[in-house]
C-alpha cells in the first residue's frame, strides 16, 4: 500500500436520480471540509423529478474538488468517477482526464441496463476504457450483504450503496470518519433502520478499501492554508438566504420575503422559511407578480421587502420593479439565473439576464445591480444589496446563478456584529422647506439623493405615493414637462451616484492584459490566471461586484490595459456595456452551454489573447 501526496483531487459521483448522489456528495464534502482542505462543489441533476431510471437523462451527479491551497472551481476534469450504473458512466466518461480512476459495479452492467444507457457493447469489456484505471467493485452486492442483519427489503437495502461509496472514497483519501455516523443518524432520525443501514454500508465501504488489495494506493491531500477560524460548508442559495437574514438583523428591520417557487431559486425560500424565529416572514404567493407586490407592500410598511426568482420570474416582475423605481422604495430582487430563453434549461447555469436586469423595464428606470462571485460570497453580496436598497430607497437586483446557487464551498463564518450598520432613517416629522409644516416624501438627502421615507403609523406624515410621475419634493402627481425631465434625471443620478467600492485589480506584474469578469465566473477565471502566472505569464485580473452603477474607477482601469478579456456565460452582455464606455479593446469570450467555464478552457483563451499584446 502506498500513499501518494497530491495537491488537489476532483471526485465525481454519478448515478440515477434516485441513487442518492446529492447526499453522498454532501457528506463527502463535509468530511473533506472538516479535514481542512479547501474545496468547491458542483451538483448536477436532470430537470425531471425522476427521469427514467437507468437512462442518460436520468443521471444525477455531484463533483467535489479539494486541495491543499485555496481553489475556486469545482474542477475541470475529474480524477475519480464513481459511476453507479452504465448510464452514469456514459454521461460522464467524456469529462475524465486521461488515466482517471473509474469505480463501477459490474453487476449493474446487464444487457438491459446497457441498452437503456445506449451502449451497444459493454464498455467494461470492449476496451473502450483502456485509457482509464477501472475498478470493478460489486457495490450493490457488498452493501446488501453488509446491511442484511437489519432486514430491509432488497430495494431499500440497495439504497445504502451510496454510503458504501462514501466509505470507500473516505478510505482512499484519508477523510476523517468522525461525525459521519452521527450525521447519518441525525439525517434519518425518523427511520432508525435506514440510519443503521447507512452506517453499516459506510463501514463496509471503508473496510473494503482497507482489506481488499484492489486499491494499491491511497492519496493524501494536505489541509489547505486557509485563514484560521470557524468554517462551515455553504451553498450559494443558503449563503444568500443568510445574507438576507443578516441584513434584516443589522438594519433592525422586519424582512418580508414574497416569492414563488422556481428552480434554481426555491431553496432560498426553503432556507428562510426555517428561520421564522427571526423578524422574518415568508409569503409563498400565487405568482411572481404577486410575490414582488407583497414584498413591495411590505417595504411600503417599513419592512425590507425581498423577492427571489429566476429569469422568467424577473420578466414577470418587470412592471412592478418599475413601480418600485417610481415609488423609490427599498426592495431586494434576487435573480438566480438559469439557462434561457424561455423555460430553457432550468437546472443549468447562465449569466444571460444581465441586460434584462439593467434594461428590462419600460421608461428610464435604473436599478442597481450586485453580483456575488462565489457561493459564500452570496452572503456578502446580499448584505450589500440590501444596504443599497435601504440607504438609497431603491429596488436592487442581485444576480446569482445556478452554479453559485447549488455549488458550495467552505465559508469562514462572518461576524455579523462587525457588519456596517444599515439605517432606514424613517422620517418622524414634517420636513417641508417652505415653512408649510407639510411632509414632503420626495424631498431628498443631498448626498445620496434618497427620498424621505415615512411609514404608515407615523402621525402627521400621511401621504400617498404611486406610479404616476411625482412632483419633485412634494411627491404629488405632476404632469409638468419640466418636472418630468428633472425627475427622470434625478432618479438616474441617484443610481449613478451610489457609493460602490472601486474595482480591485490584481496585477502583480503590471500586465498589459486584463481579464475582467462578473458573477460565478470568478472561480474558473481565478484558477486560469493562477495557472498562467505559475507558468510565468503576466495577466491582470479584476472582478465586478457592481454592474450598476459601475465602480467609479472602471473606465480608468479599462483604459490602462491594452486588451481586456471578458469571459461570460452569455453572448457578451457585460462586454456590450463596457464597449459603450471605453475605447479599450474589449475581447468578449462567451460560452452558453449551461455549464460553468473550465479553468483549462479559459487558460487557453487567455494565452491566445496574450499574443499581440505588447508585454
Amino acid at each position: 500500500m502506498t500513499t501518494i501526496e497530491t495537491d488537489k483531487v476532483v471526485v465525481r459521483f454519478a448515478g440515477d436520480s434516485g441513487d442518492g448522489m446529492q447526499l453522498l456528495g454532501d457528506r463527502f464534502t463535509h468530511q473533506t471540509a472538516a479535514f481542512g482542505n479547501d474545496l468547491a462543489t458542483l451538483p448536477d441533476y436532470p430537470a425531471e423529478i425522476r427521469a427514467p431510471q437507468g437512462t442518460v437523462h436520468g443521471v444525477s451527479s455531484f463533483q467535489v474538488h479539494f486541495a491543499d491551497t485555496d481553489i475556486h472551481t469545482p474542477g475541470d476534469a475529474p480524477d475519480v468517477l464513481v459511476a453507479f450504473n452504465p448510464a452514469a458512466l456514459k454521461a460522464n466518461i467524456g469529462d475524465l482526464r486521461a488515466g482517471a480512476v473509474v469505480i463501477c459495479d459490474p453487476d449493474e452492467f446487464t444487457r438491459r441496463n446497457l441498452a437503456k444507457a445506449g451502449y451497444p457493447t459493454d464498455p467494461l469489456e470492449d476496451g473502450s476504457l483502456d485509457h482509464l484505471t477501472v475498478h470493478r467493485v460489486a457495490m450493490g452486492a457488498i452493501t446488501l450483504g453488509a446491511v442484511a442483519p437489519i432486514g430491509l427489503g432488497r430495494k431499500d437495502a440497495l439504497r445504502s450503496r451510496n454510503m458504501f461509496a462514501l466509505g470507500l472514497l473516505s478510505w482512499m483519501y484519508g477523510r476523517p470518519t468522525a461525525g459521519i455516523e452521527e450525521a447519518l443518524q441525525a439525517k434519518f432520525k425518523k427511520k432508525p433502520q435506514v440510519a443503521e443501514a447507512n452506517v453499516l454500508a459506510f463501514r463496509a465501504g471503508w473496510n473494503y478499501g482497507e482489506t481488499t488489495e484492489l486499491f494499491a494506493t491511497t492519496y493524501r491531500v494536505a489541509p489547505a492554508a486557509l485563514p484560521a477560524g470557524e468554517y462551515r460548508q455553504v451553498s450559494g442559495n443558503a449563503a444568500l438566504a443568510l445574507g438576507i437574514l443578516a441584513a434584516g438583523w443589522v438594519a433592525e428591520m422586519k424582512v418580508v420575503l414574497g416569492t414563488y417557487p422556481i428552480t434554481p431559486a426555491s431553496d432560498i425560500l426553503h432556507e428562510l422559511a426555517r428561520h421564522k424565529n427571526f423578524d422574518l416572514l415568508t409569503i409563498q404567493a400565487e405568482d411572481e407578480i404577486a410575490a414582488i407586490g407583497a414584498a413591495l407592500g411590505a417595504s411600503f410598511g417599513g419592512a425590507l421587502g425581498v423577492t427571489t426568482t429566476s429569469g422568467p420570474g424577473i420578466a414577470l416582475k418587470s412592471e412592478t420593479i418599475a413601480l418600485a423605481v417610481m415609488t423609490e422604495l427599498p426592495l431586494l430582487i434576487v435573480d438566480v439565473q438559469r439557462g434561457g430563453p424561455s423555460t430553457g434549461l432550468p437546472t443549468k447555469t447562465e449569466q444571460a439576464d444581465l441586460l434584462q436586469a439593467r434594461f428590462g423595464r419600460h421608461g428610464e428606470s435604473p436599478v442597481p445591480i450586485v453580483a456575488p462571485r462565489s457561493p459564500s460570497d452570496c452572503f456578502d453580496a446580499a448584505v450589500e444589496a440590501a444596504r443599497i436598497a435601504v440607504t438609497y430607497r431603491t429596488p436592487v437586483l442581485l444576480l446569482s446563478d445556478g452554479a453559485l446557487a447549488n455549488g458550495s464551498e467552505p465559508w469562514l463564518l462572518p461576524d455579523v456584529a462587525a457588519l456596517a450598520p444599515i439605517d432606514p432613517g424613517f422620517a418622524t416629522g414634517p420636513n417641508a422647506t417652505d415653512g408649510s409644516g407639510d411632509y414632503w416624501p420626495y424631498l431628498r438627502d443631498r448626498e445620496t439623493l434618497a427620498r424621505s421615507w415615512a411609514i404608515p403609523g407615523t402621525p402627521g406624515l400621511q401621504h400617498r405615493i404611486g406610479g404616476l410621475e411625482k412632483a419633485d419634493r412634494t411627491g404629488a402627481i405632476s404632469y409638468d414637462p419640466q418636472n418630468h425631465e428633472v425627475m427622470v434625471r434625478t432618479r438616474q443620478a441617484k443610481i449613478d451616484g451610489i457609493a460602490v467600492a472601486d474595482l480591485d485589480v490584481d496585477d502583480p506584474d503590471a500586465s498589459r492584459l486584463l481579464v475582467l469578469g462578473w458573477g460565478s465566473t470568478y472561480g474558473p477565471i481565478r484558477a486560469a490566471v493562477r495557472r498562467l502566472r505559475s507558468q510565468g505569464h503576466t495577466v491582470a485580473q479584476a472582478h465586478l461586484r457592481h454592474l450598476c452603477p459601475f465602480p467609479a474607477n472602471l473606465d480608468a482601469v479599462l483604459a490602462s490595459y491594452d486588451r481586456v478579456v471578458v469571459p461570460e456565460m452569455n453572448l457578451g452582455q457585460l462586454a456590450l456595456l463596457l464597449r459603450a464606455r471605453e475605447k479599450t479593446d474589449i475581447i468578449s469570450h462567451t460560452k452558453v452551454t449551461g455549464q460553468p467555464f473550465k479553468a483549462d478552457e479559459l487558460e487557453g483563451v487567455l494565452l491566445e489573447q496574450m499574443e499581440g499584446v505588447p508585454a
Partner: protein
Amino acid sequence: MTVVDIEMPSGGRSGTALVPRDPNPQKAADYRSDQEVRWCPGCGDYVILSTVQAMLPELGLRRENIVFVSGIGCSSRFPYYLDTYGMHSIHGRAPAIATGLAVARPDLSVWVITGDGDALSIGGNHLIHALRRNVNLKILLFNNRVYGLTKGQYSPTSDKGMVTKSSPAGSPDAPFNPVSLALGAEATFVARAMDSDREGLTEVLREAAEHRGTALVEIYQNCPIFNAGAFDTLKDPEQALHRLIRLRAGEEVELGPVGDDGRATQVVVRDRRGSLAVMARSDANPGTILVHDPDDEDPSTAFALSRLSTQDLSTTVTGVFRSVSRPAYDDDVRDQAALARAARPPSIADVIAGPETWNVPERSEA
C-alpha cells in the same frame, strides 16, 4: 404528507383589533386630503368618497394607521383624496401589494380600492387568492361595468353585447357575477352596495371593517360618461322597489312595496330544485321563505342569492351575503413566526454557523 394544526387563537377578533385607536373624536373633514378631486361631474366615485370619509371616523382609528392601496383606473385615484397613507399602485396588483403590507403590519387597517377592470380583469388572480387566504383586507370594488380611465371599453362585468369602441358589434364576453366569483373563491365576507345608497353602503363598510379577513364589497358605481344609466333602474325608487333586495341577517329575504300587513309583498323562496325565486308573499308557503343567515358556514345559500342577482338587474341583492369567521392569513403567518420565536429565540450567529462547522487553526508555519 404531514399536516400540522396551525389554527391559532388569533381568529375571531375584529378586523381592526390590532390597530391603535385615536383618543380624539374625528370628523369626515379630517379625512379629506389637500388634493383636488378629479373625476367627471356626476361620477359615482364622488359619493362613495364622501361616504367613506364619513364612515372612517366611526372606526375611531388613528388616521396614520389606515392605508388605502389601489390599482389603476378612475376609481383607483381614490387614495389621493383621503388623508391617510396610501398607494396608487399598478393595474390589478393592489390586493397583492396590500397582502404584503397587511402581513408586515398588523397595526394597520388596510383597504383596497379597485374597479371592475382592475379587480376582475387584470387583477382577477390576486383577488381570488386574497379571498381564499382570507388576508385582513377590505376590498372595495367599484363596479361601473366599463373601463372608465381608458375611455370606455367593455369590462368583465359589462353586458354581453355591449357596444363600445372595442366591441362595435357588441361584447362577446359573458360577464362575471363578482359575488358568485368571490364565493367560489372561498370568500369569508362578501357584500354589495350602491354608490347612491349612502346608508346601505355605510352599513356594509362598517361590517367589512369589523370583519377579520378579506372583505369584498362590490359597489355599483355610475359612470355617466361611458356607461350612463347602467344602474338607473335601481335608482328609480318605483322600479327599485320591485328589483332591489336588501339582505338583513336573521330576517326574511323580501322586496316590493309594503302590504297591508306592514310587510313587503314579495319574498324569496327556495324552489324544489334548489334555486331561489321571488314570489308573492301571499303565494308562498311561510316555511319556505328564505331567512338570511350570513354566518352560514356553507356558502351554498349565499351563492344561490348571488345568482338571484341577474346581470340585467331585474333582481338585485344588496347587503352582506356572507360573513363567517375563519383564521386570517396574516394572523396565521405572524402566529407561526411568534411560535417559532417562542420555541427558539433567534441567534444570528447560530444560524450562520448552521448545523456543522469546523475550525481551521492558526497556522504555525509561515
